[in-house]
């Protein structure tokens, strides 16, 4: 289980997260929603070790994450699909996937993992030798997810999956994620700007505003919550002007 | 601020101290030579300071402007024109050189600018080496009247003018733009600053000053056995060192750094020989890694710390 406890995170001298706490149980799909700049990606970067906490701690099955460097966190079985995909543009699809299995234990099982990924995303097999930089947006997102899955992780972190993709493709990807979660019991934590999408996919959700958690609970309940509806879904009374 | 007032007073006093002695005391050729060299270093390091310290463009081709100024001054003076005009001519020639070869390189960023200016300086060195069969000499008549005192004053005056020019530029709108470019060129561009224009100002002024320095050196040395030596990268690297160690992007930093370098190399050359350059190199590395603001910066930070201590008690 992944536990984030009362963390403060800064960008240089600017505070971005205040006293943030979350818990993500084994086998759950949990989501964090909020608008642009609310702190979602900051939290993701902190969990994966790219940013450090200035207060509080992050814990995964009794192992402290917040002091580890990113590659150590990967070794613990936590894999991230970063915002903007961050593929290796001058490496082929196959090489990008191989990079997902960089740590020694993953290298041993990479053939099986590769078969699995090609099953999930047949287009990647088709384009295996192509340079990642030449793929379309949707294909790149599939590759990014595939690369993270090569680790066969315990916990999959996804940062802004839907950005720039067609709704149809996003639905497909959601289905894939949900299937993996059911079949492989993979824990998924995703941050999303598309509140409707995220809450319909997840078991539980958290809402973040200006670096603070303001709401949490069962995803379906949150979805029908009047305040959420008004603030993020544009339903009900007039939208607040920004 | 009273501190600036005090600073000006000290500078004024120092200036007077510098002007008077040669008229009344017999200072000895070694000392005088050393002082003129010091002045040349101050001019050169302020020159690099403008483009490198304030504008953040690391120029590795300063030697080309130095050598160019030197050559033009030499020939203009040889043709009979008084030395002060010849030196100015040298400065202007360096500006012309900067327009021809420097402006195109300004389109380059960071490392490419450094490499490009370095390569151009080398081209100059090779061309000059081939044009002037090495030795460049003054007629004997110039050597007969040789006296270090005029050279001392030329060096001193040009050095003072240099510091004044740098002061005026950096305390103007141009100076603000330069620092903005150094800190974040993209941000500066986005806020509407014409970064190219200001880089040009910085480069042209910098080359002018470097050319003046070359002119002073031409006056000092008269003849050169191996003319390519004045285009050697050393004439870029030593001022660069003086600026970084003294404090880049400050007015007094290059002066302090130059004094430091010249004085220390005299002391060390006597005791340690080659080793003094090694110590400078190590000092330079330490400064870059731990105190990027040089000696001036450390002084500033110590003063900040002291004032904080004062306030809390």
């Amino acid at each position: 289980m992944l536990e984030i406890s009362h963390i403060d995170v800064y960008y240089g001298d600017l505070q971005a997260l205040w006293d943030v706490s979350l818990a993500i149980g084994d086998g759950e799909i949990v989501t964090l929603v909020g608008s642009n700049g609310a702190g979602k990606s900051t939290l993701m970067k902190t969990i994966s070790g790219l940013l450090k906490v200035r207060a509080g701690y992050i814990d995964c099955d009794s192992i402290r994450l917040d002091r580890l460097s990113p590659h150590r966190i990967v070794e613990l079985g936590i894999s991230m699909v970063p915002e903007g995909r961050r593929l290796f543009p001058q490496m082929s699809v196959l090489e990008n996937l191989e990079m997902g299995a960089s740590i020694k234990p993953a290298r041993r099982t990479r053939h099986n993992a590769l078969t699995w990924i090609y099953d999930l995303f047949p287009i990647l097999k088709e384009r295996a030798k192509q340079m990642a930089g030449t793929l379309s947006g949707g294909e790149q997102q599939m590759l990014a997810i595939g690369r993270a899955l090569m680790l066969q992780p315990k916990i999959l972190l996804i940062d802004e999956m839907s950005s720039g993709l067609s709704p149809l493709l996003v639905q497909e990807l959601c289905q894939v994620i949900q299937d993996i979660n059911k079949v492989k019991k993979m824990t998924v934590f995703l941050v999303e700007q598309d509140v409707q999408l995220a809450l319909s996919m997840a078991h539980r959700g958290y809402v973040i505003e200006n670096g603070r958690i303001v709401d949490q609970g069962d995803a379906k309940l949150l979805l029908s919550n009047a305040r959420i509806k008004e603030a993020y879904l544009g339903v009900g009374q007039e939208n607040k002007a920004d | 601020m009273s501190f600036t007032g005090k600073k000006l007073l000290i500078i004024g006093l120092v200036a007077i101290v510098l002007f008077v002695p040669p008229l009344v005391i017999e200072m000895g050729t070694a000392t005088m030579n050393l002082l003129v060299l010091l002045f040349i270093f101050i001019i050169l390091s302020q020159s690099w300071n403008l483009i490198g310290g304030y504008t953040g463009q690391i120029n590795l081709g300063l030697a080309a402007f130095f050598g160019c100024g030197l050559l033009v001054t030499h020939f203009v003076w040889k043709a009979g024109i008084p030395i002060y005009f010849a030196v100015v001519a040298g400065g202007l020639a360096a500006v012309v050189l900067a327009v021809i070869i420097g402006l195109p390189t300004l389109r380059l960023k960071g490392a490419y600018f450094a490499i490009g200016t370095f390569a151009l300086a080398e081209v100059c060195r090779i061309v000059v080496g081939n044009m002037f069969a090495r030795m460049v000499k003054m007629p004997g008549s110039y050597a007969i009247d040789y006296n270090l005192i005029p050279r001392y004053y030329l060096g001193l005056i040009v050095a003072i003018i240099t510091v004044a020019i740098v002061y005026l530029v950096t305390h103007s709108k141009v100076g603000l733009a330069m620092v903005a470019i150094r800190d974040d060129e993209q941000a500066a561009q986005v806020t509407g600053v014409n970064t190219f224009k200001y880089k040009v100002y910085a480069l042209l002024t910098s080359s002018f000053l470097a050319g003046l320095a070359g002119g002073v050196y031409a006056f000092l040395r008269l003849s050169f056995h191996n003319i390519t030596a004045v285009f050697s990268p050393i004439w870029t690297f030593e001022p660069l060192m003086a600026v970084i160690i003294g404090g880049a992007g400050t007015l007094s930093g290059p002066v302090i750094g130059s004094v430091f370098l010249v004085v220390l190399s005299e002391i060390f050359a006597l005791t340690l020989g080659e080793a003094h350059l090694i110590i400078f190199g190590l000092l330079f590395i330490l400064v870059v890694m731990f105190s990027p603001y040089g000696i001036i910066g450390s002084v500033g930070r110590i003063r900040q710390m002291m004032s904080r201590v004062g306030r809390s008690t």
Partner: protein
Amino acid sequence: MEIVFQSIANGILVGALYGLVALGLGLLMGVMKFLNIAHGTFIILGGYVSFWLFNLWGIDPFLSIPVVVIVMFFIGLVLYKLAFSPLLKLPTIGMRIDTSMLVTFGLIWVLDNVMTMLWTPDTRTIITTYTGETLKVFGTRFSITGLGGLSVAVLVALILYVVLSRTYFGKHIRAATQDAEAASLCGINVNRVYLFSSGIAIALAGVAGVVIVSTYSINASGGISWLLIAFVVMILAGEGNINAIIPAGVVFGLLEAGSVLVVGVPYRQAIALLVFIVVLIFKPQGLFAKKD
């Protein structure tokens, strides 16, 4: 016509060496965005190691290469630990490049003068039984040492290519070069990649030095001129484009050889440099740049 062929031959031989000279610099710049201005100095250092191995124990320079590689590799590791890794904390790439330039510039002063103190400013060269010998093929002369240099350059480039494209370690290097953060998210220990890349880069400089001391000569302050060549070839090849460095070196070598035909020996480097500057201004991504 014979002169043209000879020029081409000379250009290729010297150009391969130029490429070899640039490999270490290009690797470091591509992987870590560090500009190692002391690169020329390390080349000279490698030359000295080979020189002393030859003079003290009679080891042929080309055979001394493995020893030089090991020694210089360790020096590269130390260099990373002491001078490079602190700079990784700098916030922007621009600052990293600038600061690495300055730090390595200071290193030149330290190392050049240490070498001068240890081994005097005298010019050193290695004279073996085959120094000065040439091979004549269809009327064109190829110097034996030049051919040796060409072979070394090609061999090294090949090894580098295989490592980068076929081994995990090589792929980790490429990944870290293209996106260091993403690489660490894949579980790649980027600091270790940087550490070994530094070792390899300095080792490459050392190998170039061995070829130079046996083909030409070295002296303690000769690093700067080789640095300039490394700069030029690296930029001609394009940033991060390791595989294009030897070809780019050959292009520059041919350019120089060609200039000799046109303007004669004294100005040949100047012409080549001028062409380089023109390329720099109009196509700074290099002659061999890949389109993204």
